[in-house]
């Protein structure tokens, strides 16, 4: 490990002690540990997942960033790379996977679909972006993003982790942010249980009568 990464600037350490002593802040140590081994969930949804695999393979070699250990189970993963189109039928499973990930957990929306619905946004079974359900840390544009773009996104995530403070991260705070995200339900359409009052207000009002559907 490079002492520059861990030592807090501004503290003089005598030359002969430099290899045994470091002066640092807890945040810095904690962030360094996290950013250097982000384990992604082995989880692909669509076309973007293939580029994710290509990023991991020999030519682009994600191992250079300590991120090559893809975990098939969410319980061992730190990062969810949402690689592909999020459909209404799939989103309950995605939210459940996210809830099962231990903290700290990060979400990277890879590609146009995961960020906003992409080319399939108008589709009746498509969720226009995973950020409707999960807090996204990094968006990577592209359809699909090239491996270089994904790596750039991951580096951005590392920079974001560098700025975290143990006092402020959302999983150690009290309040709604740290609780699990309610799992949406499949009814006549996708029901986000947090929005039940909105849905009710709409369907039971008179305006909804004008939408006619077969």
């Amino acid at each position, binding site marked *: 490990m490079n002492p520059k990464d861990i030592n807090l600037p501004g503290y003089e350490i005598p030359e002969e002690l430099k290899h045994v002593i470091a002066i640092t802040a807890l945040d810095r140590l904690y962030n360094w540990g996290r950013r250097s081994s982000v384990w992604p969930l082995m989880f692909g949804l669509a076309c973007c997942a293939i580029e994710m695999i290509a990023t991991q393979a020999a030519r682009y070699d994600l191992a250079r960033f300590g991120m090559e250990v893809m975990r098939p189970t969410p319980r061992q993963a730190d990062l969810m790379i949402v690689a592909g189109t999020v459909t209404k039928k799939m989103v309950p499973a995605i939210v459940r996977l996210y809830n099962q990930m231990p903290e700290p957990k990060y979400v990277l929306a890879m590609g146009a679909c995961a960020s906003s619905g992409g080319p399939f946004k108008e589709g*009746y079974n498509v969720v226009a972006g995973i950020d409707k359900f999960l807090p996204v840390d990094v968006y990577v544009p592209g359809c699909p993003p090239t491996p270089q773009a994904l790596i750039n996104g991951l580096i951005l995530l590392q920079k974001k982790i560098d700025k975290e403070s143990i006092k402020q991260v959302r999983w150690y705070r009290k309040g709604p942010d740290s609780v699990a995200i309610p799992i949406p339900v499949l009814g006549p359409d996708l029901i986000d249980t947090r929005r039940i009052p909105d849905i009710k207000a709409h*369907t039971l009002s008179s305006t909804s009568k004008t939408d006619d559907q077969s």
Partner: protein
Amino acid sequence: MIAPDSTTTIDLVARFPSVVTPDTRPGYSGWIVDPAHLTEVATAIRNEFSYDLLSSVTGVDYYPDKMEVVYHAYRTTGGPALVFKVQIPRHNPVVPSVTPIWKGAELQEREAWDLLGIRFEGHPDLRRIFMWEGFAGHPLRKDWKEPFYEEDVKPFKSRWPEGKHLPAEMRTPLQDNLFFPPGFDPEAFSFQDPDQAAYEALRRQHRPTDEDGIQTDVIIINMGPQHPSTHGVFRAAVMLDGETIIGLKPIVGYLHRNHEKIGERNTFLQNMPYTDRLDYFNSMSNNFGYALAVEKLMGIPVAERAEYIRVIMAELSRIQNHLVWFGMMLNDLGAMYTPALYAFEERELILDIFEATAGSRMMCNYFRFGGVARDVSEDTLRKIHDLVHDRLPRKIDEMDRLLTENEVLVSRLKGIGYLSAEDAIRTSMTGPMLRASGVPYDIRRADPYSIYDRFEFDVACHPEGDMYARYQVRMDEVRESIKIIKQALKQIPQGPIMSVKPSYQIKVPPGEAYGRVEAPKGELGFYIVSNGQPNPWRYHVRAPSLINLTSLEMMCIGEKIADFVAILGAVDIVLGELDR
């Protein structure tokens, strides 16, 4: 190249007077069968006229008049299609199921029920397939509008010529892609697991037998949709007796992204990039099939040089598909990652060629009606030449040495997942799966399209019907593809790459067309109906990944659960195409 008219060879009217009439609408072909006699006619088509392979079944909503179900049947000995249709009223679309005759119709009929609301009487398990049970409406009906609906056809006026549009979220009542029927009360809604229906179907179809009077209990386990072996978001409910599989239902639709509904809004050319995203390993083959179908409708030729470029690209695509398949298959068998890394290394080289010609690694969007989008440079042709003459044969031999005789591989593959030739045909298997059951059916030979009739190549075929045969077929196919590319590189002429003037808005006369290619995963077909407008009226994709799953249960029954992963891997599914 336009295939010869299929209807000239046999005369259904002579065999079934007053039940069958020829389809005389301009631009259409085939026969219209009285729905009441469909079973009888279909049985004769299969048994008397030996159209043993039912390729595609789909519905068309001729709003507001009627619904139509369209069948394309082929002979596995080769030759063009026999197209027959039944017409039914829109308000009560009921058709006898042909699943008892061709089992391959099973999943396709479920699809037509799910998306168009056509009921198939006598179907063993008619449930929704892509959408969940309880979803409101049948989305491919022309009068069903999705929540983000803007206009019937593209380009939407708000984009062009006006150039200003509101984001869909700002136009819709719930600011989201949601529709709830009026009066729906989410609080009173009692959630039922939509998948119970699948479990019930399993329990209905498989009653565990208790030999020796010992009652054993069965368990149903779920594999997927998040599981490292399912190659995406595929899911299967597997019924187990101990470790032995006694029943299985694929549960799909987790990547159903409404390709066909969007395709019917798009203009003909706008669909080209969408086809890339079907089987995202092989955008070139997908482009190929779609271009063939539309060119058939338009009746235009393809520029000579472009024909060669198309073949070269499609075969390169097949090589990288099969290479990745070797890697993934070995992954599934537990040889974690080494073969996959080898495969991806070669794949990158082929993707480099795609990037140099089409501009994108995966989503090539390269074919145009009448040719291709860009010419291939001499430099790229030289690179391809080096690849197929030196690097690829060497690497494939290396893989062959590494894997083919490997003891673990042989013992995991030999004799497992058996599928007989009859069953393979009955369940409409195509591609390497069918050829590994000993049926030498390859569309490039059986019903040649483009310029495949100019090349020397063998149809890879192995009669054993087990997983090892599926492995060998693919190994052979890679070598044959290299052979084809070598010949194409020798013959490719100079000249234009488009036979017509490129244009964004093409004129397509009314009619129907079915274009199909031998994609790496099987027969990829596009059924397109045009009514003379700039957008297709019906746009249907016959997805080999989906239809090849019809026999999954057959192959798995009696095997151990650990082999399910490998059997599924051997089918080579890709979810973008399976779910569309």
